[in-house]
Every structure is written in C-alpha cells, then in structure tokens.
C-alpha cells in the first residue's frame, strides 16, 4: 500500500485572519500581513503520525518536496519519497501538478487543504485514485474530508486494511459572495474516498435495538410511493445512488436520474428535459441534503428547477436522509435556495425527512 500526500501550505490562512477562505494570492498576502501562520503542514503531519502509529514506520509516502509534503512526512517521523519539485509560492497549479504526478503511483492520495484544494485535486485526478482530505482549510463543505487530521490517519489505516470506497461530494463556495455575507455553495463534482462507515461503536453491546433505518428501507418506501408505473426522480448524491442501487439500478452519482419500476428511464437529465418528463407522467421527486451545509435544493442540483418542483407537486417531494446524516448536521436546519422566493417559502418550515421504511424525522427547513 502506497500513500501519496499533497499539502496546500497556504490553506487555512484566511480563516485564521477572519477572511473566510484563502483563494487568491492577494487574500493570502493579506492573511500573512494580519499575522496568520500556515498550519496545513502541521495538520498533515498529525494525520501521518496517526498513520505511522497504526501501520509502523515503514509506511511509504510519496509526495512533493518541501512545504507541499516532504516536510510534513519528515515531521511525522517517516521518510518521504519525493516525486516532484514545486515552485514557490505555491498556487493551485502546483497542487494540480503534484496530484497528477502522484495519482498513478499511489493507492490512496491524501491531501491537506480546504475546499479549494479539493477542487484542484479533483481537476487533476478525477476518480482515477481514491483520495482523502486532511482538513486544514477554512471551508469544509466537501464530503471528502475526514472530521479531523487524526481521523484522516485512522481512516487511511483502515483503508490499507481493506476498506472499499464510496463517492463523496466536492463542494465549493464562491468566496467573494461569502465575504459579502452571502452563502453560495455548489456541487463541483465527486471523488472516491475510503468507505469507513460511521464507527458502529460497541457493536458487541447492542443492549437496545438494531437500527431500523437504512438506505434499503428508504428505497422500499420511495418505490412504494411511486408505484410500478410512476416516475421516481432521484437527485444527485451518494445516498440517492445507493437508493437506486437498492432498487436494482446503476446510475451515475452526479446528476439527476429518473427511474420507473426500478429501471432508469433518464440518466443525468437536464432541467428542461426533466420538466417535460415529469409533466408527462405522475412522479415522485426525492432529494437529499448535499454536503455539509444541508442544502436540499439550489446547490448541486439546479437541474431540479422551481418549475420541475411545481410540476411534480410540493406534496410529492420527498426529502431523504439517513439518521446519521441528520445527526451530522448537529441541529442545523436544512436549507433551500431555488431562486424562486415563493417556492422557497412554501418549502420552509418543518418537513418530514424520510429516514427508513415507515420512518421519518420532522426536521426544520430554512
């Protein structure tokens, strides 16, 4: 098992300085001027130290030279194999170049940075190699990051022990918009990350009950609602793809897909075609919160336009999430921003979120 590492040394600068992101050389310069110290290397080293403690000092890590990786590898007590020499100061182009060079040589590519770094890595490697983000940046809307640096090391070690992969969302914010007080996240794409489920702690214990919520239960519930002749429109996201799989259909994780009786009738369909389809036949529309912000509509699934929602009918829109995903929101509401204020108002309030067969959570939407 070979690991790769790319560090975006300037990731996290903006956050320290209260600048909401670090994109752009001028922002970085302002951050440094405000006294910010790069921490990405430190956090990458923490992840590698965890990996080392689990797999031993012989772990092979291929990386870029200097602050883009080798320093962190050494700080973790490991010997780096340096495969590329970046320029300085580092830019998104350096991240992309290093990731592209490492991808064919490693089994898992770790990268330390934020959403912008994730976007660069996605551009460079696509889904050619499993990746895992070590969180260091300001914005953590993408689902490709471990919850903290040590957890990244832990997940990497579990991947080496044989865990599979799952698609995870890469999100990005328009940082200018955030600095102006607006939140505007969008789904940028998907990468494959190690599939280490939420730790089912104390599996030996189980004095209470086995979990009755599952993707399969959600799938059965949706199939029952749509019926054999109705359309089932599934929004993007890993949960929806798993729902499709439970119904026997293999659909891409990106894009909006339409099933009838478990068979795909339209894949990665665009807004206009989708609207036409749902006007032609009774349909159920299922969407799941995207990324860490809890966006239901308006981010990453713009194909599901206000007209599509109206055509399907408000009462035939099913919000879907596993209990673990809802729990992960930590009490924050789900969000809608379809661009149609009237529709958004209709969607707001407490909605039933389907968490299993015959099971819903009553959850706020803002």
């Amino acid at each position: 098992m070979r690991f790769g590492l790319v560090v975006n040394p300037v990731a996290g600068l903006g956050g320290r300085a209260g600048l909401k992101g670090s994109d752009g050389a001028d922002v970085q310069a302002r951050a440094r001027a405000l006294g910010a110290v790069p921490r990405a290397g430190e956090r990458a080293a923490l992840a590698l130290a965890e990996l080392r403690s689990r797999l031993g000092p012989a772990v092979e890590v291929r990386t870029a030279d200097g602050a883009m990786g080798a320093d962190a590898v050494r700080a973790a007590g490991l010997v780096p194999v340096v495969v590329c020499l970046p320029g300085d100061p580092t830019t998104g182009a350096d991240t992309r170049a290093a990731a592209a060079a490492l991808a064919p040589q490693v089994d898992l590519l770790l990268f330390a940075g934020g959403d912008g770094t994730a976007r660069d890595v996605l551009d460079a490697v696509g889904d050619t190699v499993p990746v895992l983000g070590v969180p260091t940046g300001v914005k953590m809307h993408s689902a490709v990051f471990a919850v903290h640096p040590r957890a990244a090391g832990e997940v990497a070690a579990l991947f080496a022990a044989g865990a599979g992969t799952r698609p995870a969302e890469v999100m990005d914010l328009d940082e200018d918009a955030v600095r102006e007080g607006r939140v505007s996240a969008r789904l940028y794409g998907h990468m494959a990350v190690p599939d280490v489920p939420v730790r089912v702690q104390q599996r030996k214990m189980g004095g209470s009950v086995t979990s009755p919520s599952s993707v399969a239960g959600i799938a059965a519930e949706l199939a029952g609602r749509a019926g054999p002749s109705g359309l089932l429109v599934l929004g993007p996201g890993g949960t929806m793809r798993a729902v499709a799989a439970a119904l026997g259909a293999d659909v891409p994780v990106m894009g909006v897909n339409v099933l009838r009786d478990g068979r795909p009738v339209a894949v990665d369909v665009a807004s206009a075609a989708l609207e036409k389809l749902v006007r032609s036949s009774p349909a159920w529309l299922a969407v799941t919160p995207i990324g860490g912000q809890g966006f239901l509509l308006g981010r990453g699934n713009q194909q599901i336009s206000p007209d599509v929602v109206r055509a399907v009918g408000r009462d035939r829109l099913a919000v879907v999430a596993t209990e673990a995903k809802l729990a992960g929101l930590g009490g924050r509401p789900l969000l809608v921003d379809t661009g149609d204020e009237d529709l958004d108002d209709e969607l707001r309030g407490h909605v039933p979120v389907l968490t299993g067969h015959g099971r819903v959570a009553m959850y706020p939407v803002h």
Partner: protein
Amino acid sequence: MKTDRSPVSTADAVIGPKPPLRRFHQASWDEPLLFELGSPGERGVLVPEPEVPLDDTLPDGLRRAEPPALPEISQLHVLRHYLRLSQENLGADLNIDVGQGTCTMKYSPKVNDRFARDPRVADLHPLQDERTVQGVLEIVHRLEGLLKEISGMDRFSLQPGAGSAAIYANVSMIRAYFAARGEPERDEVITTIFSHPSNAACAKTAGFKVITLYPDADGYPDIEALKAAAGPRTAALLITNPEDTGIFNPRIEEFVRIVHEAGGLCAYDQANANGILGITRARDAGFDLCHFNLHKTFSTPHACGGPGAGACGVTAELAPFLPAPTVEFDGERYYLDDDRPQSVGKTRPFHGVVPNLVRAYAWIMSLGADGLREAAEVAVLNNNYLMAKVLEIPGVSAPYAAGRRRIEQVRYSWERLAEETGVHSEDIGLRAADFGTHYWTSHHPFVVPEPMTLEPTESYSKADLDEYAAILAEVAREAREEPETVRTAPHRSTVHRAREDVLDDPATWSVTWRAYRRKVLGG
C-alpha cells in the same frame, strides 16, 4: 522459632498506602469450551429410571436417529467450568456499575433473592387453583397498588417480560383503543431521538409509521417539529423524560396538550424513573399510559440481560385494553380476571416474571414513600456530583443545556479528546475494564459523538464516584501521553480484543460449536 536474627522493626511491618487506583486484574482461567471437557461415558446427573414399560408409539421418522452430540462431563467439572466463567464476569455486585447509563444499575438486595427462590414462589405452577396461590396474587395486587400511587395511573398490568415488552403492550393498547373508537386512520407514532429506541422499534413492529423529533438548540425536543407532526393521523406520542441526556423537558405538559388536541394519546417511557420517584408522576403531566422497568428503578437484578420485568400503567379509559388476566380482589380473596373482551390479550405466557414482581414489591416496602424519594434525590445528587468531577477532565463535555443540572444520568461526549488524540470513547471504555469497571457506548444513532452515558444511582457511595472519576481521568491522561495503551486495551481483563471481521463474514461466523466445527475446522 529462630532467635539468631536481628529483631524486625515495626517500621518494616508497616504496609504502605494503596496507590490512587487499584491494581486490578480480572480472573482469566483460559477456560476451554464445554465441548472440550469430559470424556465419553461421564455423567453430570442421573435421571429417574422408568418404573413402567417404555413407550414405542413414535414412528421411525419422528424418533431421534443419533444421540445429540452434547458433551459428557462429570458433575464437579460442570460446576467448576461455570464457576470459572462466573469469575470472568463483572456483576454489578462487584464493580462500580455506573457506566451502563440508561440501565439504572443499582443494588439488588440479597434478601429479596431469598424471597424469589422460596419454594412457595419458585415451585408454583401458573395454573394452580387460586386458593393455593393467594399469597402470590396478593403480592401482585399490592405491587399494582404501589405502582398506581407512584405513577398516578389507574390500573397496571405486570405481565410484560421487560421494558421493551411493556412498550409493545402499550403500543398494542393504543392500536386497540383507536380500533375500538373507529379511528384506524391514526397510524402514526411520534417519538424523539433521545427517547429509548425501543419506542420507535416497538411502534414499527406494531405497524405504526414513526416520526422522530430532533433536539432544538437547547437540547429539548423541538416543539415546533411536534406541532408540525401532530395531526389527524397521530395515534400517540411515545416519549422519555428526562431523556437519555439526563435533561428534564420542562415543557412536557405542552407536549402532551399538543398531542391530545390532535386527538392522540401520550405514553410516558418511565424505564428510568429513578430520579423522579415521589417528585413528579406520569398522570400529573397528563399522560394516558406509562411503563416501568422493574429491573431498573425497582432494583430487580439484570441477570446478564434478563429476565427483567415490565409494568404498564394506564388511565381508566384505557384499562379495558390491558393484557389479560388482571389480578383482582373481591374483599375476601384474590383472583385472576380473564373476562376482558377488549383486552389486547397475552403479552407473554401466564402472569409475568413473578420472582421479580416479588423482589420489586419487597424493595418498595423496604423503603416506603420517604425512602423512594430519598433514593431519587440521592441518585440525582450522585449524578450531579459525578458530572462535576467528570467535566473537570480535559476533553470531555456534556452536550446540550450547558450549565444546567441533570436528573439521574448524563450523556457525555469525548469528542474533543478523540480529536486531540485519536482515541475513541469505545477505547476508553475498554481501558476502564483494566481498572475493574467499564462503560458502554452503544447509543444509536450517534447524535452525541463519542458518547459515554453515566448513571450513578443511589447505590454508589461518594468514594465509589471519586474512584470512577479518577479512573476516567487516568485513562484520559493515558490517551494523551500513551495512546497505544488505551487503543489496545484491555490488558488486565479476561481476554483480549477479538477479530470482529470474523463475526461479519457468513463464511466464518460461528454461532454454535457445530458451525465452528463445520466451517472453520472443516469437519
């Protein structure tokens, strides 16, 4: 006696102080499996020889062909095997069992075991003539009376086998109630994420759809979500209070009112009533049904996971639906009333877990009204005392309702320690086993990350609580300074960590010796 040695000074005879934490090591007999003991022909016990001719009416297809491949072991060796296994078990009598939060581990008085084992309980057949069982019927009837007063409810059934069975009986009664009222469209049950998951599971099993409420920012169930959920399809609210977080929901009457106004019933999960005995009652908050776990609040032993005992209480309006039979008293004699046409029927064979009903009755009678309230207040004092000690440990927190007191338990989070050290709550619980105690962390779904739920009932002394907190503090220190020690624990327990992957693979999981022989040993 030797006289040629120099005299020993008394200073040499002084035994030094004990270290702050005990140097525990659990028994580890490295005991073989039963199937590896004994030899062909050995006997553990002999059975009466038939005095009459053997029966030969079984046809061949129904006569066992080969004797079962049970082990053959002499009596002492069977006894020794199980005594060794018993020593490899930490019963609540042996350890500071505050870590099984939500389970209300408390002292189960030995004198009550004596009653339960009395032949006038143990050797009673459930279908004996009522004239020969007046004593046990009177105990059940009296116990019902005590529980009625403790809850404010009008009638109880003591038939359910444990807490979940009592919840299921309550859900069955709710179903029967709406069927009798001609409202079968009421097919939804509302519960909260911090109510015991058996509420959702039992409702689901009984055919209801389940709606779950998440906590609001203060940690209370979201009342706006309840308003959105309650309606013409609402059959019932099933709710715990205090919830598993230990937080008492101060708006509970409003919750009950909202559901009542929607035409639904309210059932109070009082599995953990320990902290509110004599303080507040289910009926006083307007509930229509409630249940107790007698093996929690009322001290009957947990018995490795049962038998426990459950009790469900209802208002007079719901009493016709109670499981049958009920125990009645006509002023002269106690009797079983099976003539209950609207009853949901039997929840289990016969009349409930009678030995535990006897134990629970004796426990309540040994304490009385003042004693029950004292038990509640001391349990709550213990909990808040322990919370103060635990929250001094860096890396642990008590999510929700910051700064507020808790009732009889707290759901803590080790999230900060885990982020800092990579050591998880599960690891910490296993390391605690090296000090002669433990805690559990199975709190699905994991709304509170890295959870630990501690419930120090009235049975534990201040010294116990100090020791428990000191163990946690020490393990947290280790997590920072020598994480491997924690991550690979236990080290001083009976066994080491097992290969869990073996248990998940159909090719290797072995639920029985015969499966292990066939699949793993290959024959």
